[in-house]
């Protein structure tokens, strides 16, 4: 793992680097005999390249991703109102592990590339052209930390030593000077509408949306349940009701295999993944013949699925098995939510088997 690959999308340098980096090249698949002919160092380098590839082989264009990209495109493309009018925001609201952040980031990356290609690397006034800013919230985000996060993305020198109001002013300057058009605010669920500072942050987001010619793209977990944009709120929470009128909520469902279309999509995901893998004993059907098993392990959550595949590939290479199968996957633990769901599913299946065996006697 090269130290040069360590960067964050929450700084303009990291975002720019990610946006400008060309797709990785897939390592050439070798056969078992070819692997054996490699020297020790060459084998280690080849394996390292494969580990890197399996962790980064690109984003699979699932129907969920395509649908949300289409809706985001529509929202951003129509948000051309003059500054005296309010622009709408988009909110990707879903459970963890369904790819909210990936969807937001990949959409914004394409937008960033297009804008810089069309309008250049500098603004008319000679500032750096940064079509997108991106910040991730943390627990107990306050007004000041939100503003500081935005300033830190742009590398504003006053980020560390200013009060909330000054930071807000710096943030507005950065956005306007750099020609930013999309602002990603990830992990919005850290804003708690039941706390005073949560209401302050929500108010501030509304103020930013009013002040800036930017389409805000929020992502978070269970935002509807948190009543972050519930309609009909009154009194102290009236600001939330106003938010509900300005935000378009985009849902992101997990894969399901309860009907034919769902099964077809799940299979298409497995095939897309399988085709990317670089294992010497990989073969067509290696993953797709495990469709039920893989669904049980991940409950259709793409985040859990990709983790399982990445760790499986690592293990397959390290062990020399060069193949993914049920036995290999069984030895891998992934996120706790998936493991709990897996245990529940196994318990249900075992109960069903016992019931059918008893009724068959």
């Amino acid at each position, binding site marked *: 793992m090269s130290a040069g690959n360590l960067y964050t999308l929450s700084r303009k340098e990291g975002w720019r680097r990610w946006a400008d980096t060309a797709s990785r090249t897939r390592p050439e698949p*070798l056969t078992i*005999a070819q692997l054996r002919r490699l020297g020790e160092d060459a084998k280690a380098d080849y394996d390292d390249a494969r580990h890197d590839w399996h962790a980064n082989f690109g984003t699979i264009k699932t129907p969920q991703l395509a649908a949300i990209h289409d809706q985001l495109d529509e929202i951003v493309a129509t948000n051309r109102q003059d500054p005296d009018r309010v622009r709408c925001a988009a909110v990707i609201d879903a459970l963890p592990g369904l790819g909210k952040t990936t969807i937001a980031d990949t959409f914004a990356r394409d937008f960033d590339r297009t804008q810089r290609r069309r309008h250049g690397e500098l603004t008319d006034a000679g500032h750096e052209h940064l079509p997108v800013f991106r910040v991730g919230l943390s627990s107990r985000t306050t007004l000041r930390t939100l503003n500081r996060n935005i300033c830190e993305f742009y590398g504003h020198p006053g980020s560390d030593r200013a009060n909330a109001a000054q930071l807000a002013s710096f943030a507005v300057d950065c956005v306007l000077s750099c020609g930013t058009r999309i602002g990603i605010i990830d992990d919005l669920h850290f804003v708690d509408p039941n706390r005073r500072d949560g209401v302050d942050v929500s108010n501030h987001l509304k103020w930013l949306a009013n002040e800036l010619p930017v389409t805000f793209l929020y992502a978070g977990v269970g935002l509807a349940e948190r009543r972050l944009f519930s309609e009909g709120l009154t009194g102290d929470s009236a600001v939330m009701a106003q938010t509900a009128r300005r935000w378009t909520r985009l849902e992101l469902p997990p894969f399901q295999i309860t009907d034919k279309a769902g099964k077809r999509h799940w299979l298409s*995901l497995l095939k*897309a993944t399988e085709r*990317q893998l670089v294992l010497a004993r990989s*073969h*067509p*059907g290696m993953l797709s013949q495990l469709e039920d098993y893989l669904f049980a392990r991940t409950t259709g959550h793409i985040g859990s699925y990709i983790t399982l595949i990445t760790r499986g590939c690592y293990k397959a290479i390290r062990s020399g098995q060069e193949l993914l199968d049920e036995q290999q996957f069984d030895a891998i633990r992934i996120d706790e939510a998936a493991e709990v769901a897996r245990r529940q599913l196994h318990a249900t299946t075992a109960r069903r088997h016992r019931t059918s065996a008893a009724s068959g006697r």
Partner: protein
Amino acid sequence: MAARLATEYAALTTAALPAGESAAPAPLPQPLAEPEPAVAGGDDDDGDLDEGFYDDAFEVLG
């Protein structure tokens, strides 16, 4: 000189062969190779095994 030698060589070798057979030397016996498993095909792999198998796979974005 070379042309004459080639003609003589051709006459010599074809004369000893039954009609319809080539004078080309027989291929050397190859060492037994370990059978190699199929490798999953990428976009550039034109192997027969995965032909059409991945047609319904989702696209992967760069």
